[in-house]
Structures are given as C-alpha cells and as structure tokens.
C-alpha cells in the first residue's frame, strides 16, 4: 500500500482508500459497521493476494448481499446454515480459505447448532460474527444477544430475562470447544478498534489457509436502524452498553485439533 501521489506539487502517501476488492456500493444503513467489517476483510484479501484462494459465505441477515460487494467467489446460505455451507466448501476445497459473515440471529439463534458443531469439528474456517444485539434485516426483533431491558420490536417492554433468558455470550462458549484455534471479540467503533479488527482478520485468514482450526471473530457491532437511534446516538449506545456487556479482547489464541 505504499502508493504515493502528487498534489499541488506536494507528495502524499495514500493512507487509506477504498479496497480494490470492493464492488458496488453497500446498501447498509448510515453508520452501520457491517460495511466496515466487509471493507477490512476486502483489504486483507487484497493485501494477501488470495482472491483466487478464498471462498465466502453470506448469511440471511443484513450481510446477505455481501456477495455483491466482495469481488471474490461467494455463496449465499439459508438462514443459520452458513457454517454448514462453509464446512461443505472447506472439506472439498481444503487449500482455500473459507469465511462466513453472520449476524447474531443467524449464528446464535437459528444456526447455533451448525456454528457450534463446526467449531467442535474444528473446521478451518473463519467465522465473522456480527453481533448487533438485534435482528437488523427483519426490522429489529430481539436476538439471543439482545441486552436485558433492551427494547426491540419483539420485546417492546424491554428484554425480560425471565421470559427470554440472558444474552448469549457466544464467544465465551465457542472458546470451550477444542476445535477453535482463535476466538476474539473486536469492535469497529473507532480507529484503534478497527485496526485491531483488521489484524484479527489477518490472523484468522492465516489460520484458515493453514488449516489450523476454527477462527471465531465476534465483531461487536451496531444497528442504528434496529436500535431506532441516529448513527451518532448509536455510537454512544454501542460504547456504553454493547462494549460493557461484550468486553473486547482475545479469548483464545491457541487451540485447534492437532
């Protein structure tokens, strides 16, 4: 990325620009970190030069159209089944890196069995888990990760743990599985976090290429639309509520089935 340009006679390094791998404008709502996640992934693929050696799976959820944005081969999965598709792909294409992008409804509700079993088998795939504590795509219903008291369109009086249980901390659970080699919780609400997230993606891609086991990256994300907040309000809620309940950091950096 050591690109340099000259403007008004002065030399400038390009510090950041749209990744080459990005195709089409994204449809995400203003301020939604879904875009950030995909863009960072695009950068990693670009930089590693593995466009030909990576296959992605987009879920049913707001990331469903990821295949329109990522200039690499991708498959669209049924709701919750991204990890099953990824398993199928990885088993017949073992030299390729394989990733899924999945929302919290997709991964932690309907797809919990597929997710955990892929982790348990230690499929060498990259699971990118976009946790925004809500069902974005369908209009903001409660997710397994919705915070206690959080108002959603299917918990209009706030999530009541007595009726719906407490939020599921998926990363804490998958780290218990022998098949995972890397489990981390990241965010993209500021530049420091976004850079860390990118590093995490790099590591996960390496793991997949080298068949080291399952890499699980939880991106604690936002959903201004589902949260019924303006983007700027959502940043505050993100930091004050989401990051408190879902603290960032690596939960596991070694593992996988040897």
């Amino acid at each position, binding site marked *: 990325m050591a690109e340099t340009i000259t*403007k008004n006679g002065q030399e400038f390094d390009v510090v950041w620009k749209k990744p080459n791998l990005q195709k089409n404008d994204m449809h995400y709502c203003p*301020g939604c970190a879904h875009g950030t996640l995909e863009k960072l992934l695009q950068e990693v693929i670009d930089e590693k030069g593995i466009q030909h050696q990576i296959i992605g799976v987009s879920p049913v959820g707001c990331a469903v159209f990821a295949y329109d944005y990522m200039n690499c081969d991708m498959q669209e999965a049924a709701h919750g089944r991204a990890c099953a598709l990824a398993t199928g792909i990885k088993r017949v294409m073992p030299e390729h890196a394989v990733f899924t992008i999945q929302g919290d409804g997709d991964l932690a509700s309907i797809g919990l069995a597929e997710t955990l079993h892929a982790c348990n088998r230690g499929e060498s795939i990259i699971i990118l888990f976009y946790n925004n504590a809500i069902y974005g795509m369908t209009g903001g219903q409660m997710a397994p990760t919705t915070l206690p008291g959080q108002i959603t369109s299917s918990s209009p009086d706030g999530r009541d743990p007595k009726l719906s249980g407490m939020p599921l901390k998926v990363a804490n659970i998958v780290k218990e599985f022998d098949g995972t080699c890397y489990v981390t919780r990241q965010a993209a609400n500021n530049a420091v976090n976004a850079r860390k997230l990118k590093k995490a993606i790099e590591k996960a891609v390496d793991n997949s290429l080298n068949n080291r086991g399952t890499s699980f990256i939880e991106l604690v994300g936002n959903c201004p639309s589902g949260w019924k907040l303006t*983007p700027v309000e959502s940043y505050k809620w993100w930091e004050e509520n989401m990051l408190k309940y879902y603290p960032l950091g690596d939960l596991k950096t070694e593992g996988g089935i040897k």
Partner: protein
Amino acid sequence: MEIKGYIEVDIQKCKGCQLCATVCPKAVIGYSDKTNDKGYYYAIMVNEDCIGCGNCAIVCPDSVITAYRAAKK
C-alpha cells in the same frame, strides 16, 4: 504552505453518518448543508488541520474517504 494531510470524500456515496467526525483527532470533518442525491448531509473538511492519520477513512463504513498524508522526505 505545506499541509500534513488531507482527505477526499466521495460525496455521492457518503451517508452522512458522522462516524468519521467522531474519530477525527483534529475536528477536521463537518457536514454539508445540502444533501447529496441520496438525501444525506455529506462529510466535508471544515479546516486544514488534517494530519492524514487515516482514522476517519478506516472507520468509514462505506469506504467513502481516501486519506492522504504528506510523504516523509
């Protein structure tokens, strides 16, 4: 005058979410008073203090910003 950095905003793609503004260490970014074709008040540079740190660009969900930093000589 030598500048330390600057950004380019693809204004038709900008969704006016203001995340870039919240992360800029130099308060460089403000908002247009007109909307773009999508109806958003897009990001603009409101001063010349940009240091080309790239924060705004890396966090922008829509890859709208290209950030430049004066090359080291």
